């Protein structure tokens, strides 16, 4: 009998170890796969921006976009990851209630030297740090790419890269620490809930771009002497539309990476998914809501504009407008909010033009304005929901007030660094290309190859 019990105990222990290993490997694989999915976002931004550029600037826009991606990755490794873990409670970086924040904690896991280096490179006992860092690095690069489109056809390459580093490896990271971390002061004090990063990614990127645009100025020919705006058409709308669809495809990876999976170092539960706040959720529920948001945003934009550019932007706006609450919205409500976002998108994008701001792709509106709309919408519809995992009465709850505070903070954390750094670059002569280069086109001036060396043949006449 004793022998049989011992055998049974050994078998149970073996099964437990096997289940834990399966969980760990599943979590590692899950996050690993979000990374190539999110690279679709960058393929999309690349196509989107190049299509939105005139033929004389196509490759220059592409180079800028590729470099933003390339420089955000190492800089996020050098210091961005450390900022995320170091400052959720604010400055100077005290430890938070969950024990996974503060400068001391960050320095023990996120510096690439000393003892913490073991979590920043190959480690047979650590299946979580690299893939989690990788997913966050993709968020960082996405944030920088969002800004990129607004500035095309007149910004200097290196000046832009510096702005991308500040945005992707610092500004959004600070916002994420404050509002997208269980110890974040916006979460703990105000119950801010932003599951899919409408605020910490989109609002930050949109308003950072606005701060830069104020110093950068419009493209030559955008505005007439009386202040009226001209439409500067990109050279390839189909490329832009496909790019937007790629961004949408990539957003499945982005939103997938916003979940915390059972079985890894930072998991809240051993048996279910949660949001980054530890609130329980499912991929199934997320699928309902993302798809309904895509449909709503597109239809809203189609009704108002009938323009494929705005329809595809509307699809993106639908997701952004509902991103904060994709974990808890009812799909019908998701559709309605996304529809409104799609419908207001194009009219809202004309507002910056009235102030002489030339946002070449509407990034400030699609990401900034719609992101704010989404944060506040969640406050309207989800008030009273616990915004964080915790015992009844202990967990902060979502409120309109809290979401508005969150929106204001995100607008400022985006706008202020963008405005200041762009101002400094302008003083140093590193922001805008010279007028002659802009008129000649940036590709012939500074790109070593041609986008269309044989030209683009016009459509054949009907008789032919």
């Amino acid at each position, binding site marked *: 009998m004793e022998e049989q019990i011992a055998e049974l105990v050994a078998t149970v222990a073996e099964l437990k170890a096997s289940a834990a290993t399966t969980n760990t490997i599943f979590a590692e694989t899950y996050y690993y796969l979000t990374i190539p999915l999110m690279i679709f976002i960058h393929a999309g931004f690349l196509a989107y921006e190049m299509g939105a550029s005139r033929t004389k600037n196509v490759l220059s826009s592409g180079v800028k976009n590729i470099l933003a991606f390339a*420089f955000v990755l190492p800089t996020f490794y050098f210091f961005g990851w450390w900022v995320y873990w170091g400052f959720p409670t604010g400055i100077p970086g005290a430890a938070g209630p969950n024990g996974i924040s503060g400068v001391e904690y960050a320095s023990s896991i996120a510096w690439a030297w000393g003892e913490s280096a073991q979590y920043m490179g190959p480690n047979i*006992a650590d299946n979580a740090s690299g893939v989690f860092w990788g997913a966050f690095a993709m968020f960082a690069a996405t944030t920088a790419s969002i800004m990129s489109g607004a500035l095309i056809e007149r910004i200097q390459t290196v000046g832009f890269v510096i702005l991308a580093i500040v945005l992707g490896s610092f500004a959004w990271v600070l916002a994420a620490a404050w509002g997208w971390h269980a110890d974040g002061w916006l979460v703990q004090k105000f119950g801010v809930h932003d599951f899919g990063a409408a605020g910490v990614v989109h609002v930050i990127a949109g308003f950072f771009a606005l701060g830069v645009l104020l110093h950068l100025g419009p493209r030559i020919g955008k505005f007439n002497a009386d202040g009226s705006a001209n439409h500067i058409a990109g050279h390839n709308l189909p490329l832009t539309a496909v790019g937007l669809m790629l961004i949408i495809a990539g957003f499945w990876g982005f939103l997938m990476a916003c979940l915390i999976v059972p079985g890894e170092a930072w998991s809240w539960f051993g048996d279910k998914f949660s949001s980054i706040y530890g609130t329980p959720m499912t991929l199934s529920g997320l699928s309902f809501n993302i798809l309904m948001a895509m449909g709503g945003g597109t239809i809203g934009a189609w009704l108002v504009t009938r323009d494929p550019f705005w329809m595809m932007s509307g699809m993106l706006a639908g997701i952004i407008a509902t991103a904060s609450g994709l974990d808890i919205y009812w799909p019908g409500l998701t559709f309605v909010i996304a529809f409104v976002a799609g419908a207001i998108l194009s009219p809202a994008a004309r507002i910056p033009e009235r102030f002489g701001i030339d946002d070449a792709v509407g990034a400030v509106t699609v990401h900034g304005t719609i992101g704010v709309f989404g944060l506040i919408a969640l406050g309207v519809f989800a008030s009273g929901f616990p915004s964080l995992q915790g015992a009844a009465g202990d967990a902060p709850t979502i409120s309109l007030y809290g979401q508005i505070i969150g929106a204001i903070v995100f607008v400022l954390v985006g706008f202020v660094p963008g405005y200041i750094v762009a101002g400094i670059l302008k003083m140093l002569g590193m922001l805008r290309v010279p007028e*002659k280069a802009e008129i000649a086109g940036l590709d012939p001036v500074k790109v070593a190859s041609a986008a269309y060396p044989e030209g683009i043949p016009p459509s054949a006449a009907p008789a032919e």
Partner: protein
Amino acid sequence: MGFPFEPASWDAVTGAMYMGAGGSMTLVYTLIAAAVCVYALWRGHSKEHALYDKHK
């Protein structure tokens, strides 16, 4: 930097397994990588402005 474990067998590896694990070279290489980024920006800026100057 060599295999950081004795004896030279993967059986001895239970944690960090990269080149230079446990030593100071991680800092050195990180600093070199950061310096490469700074140099690339500086060099890129110089080249970019040289091209603009040609079109003045």
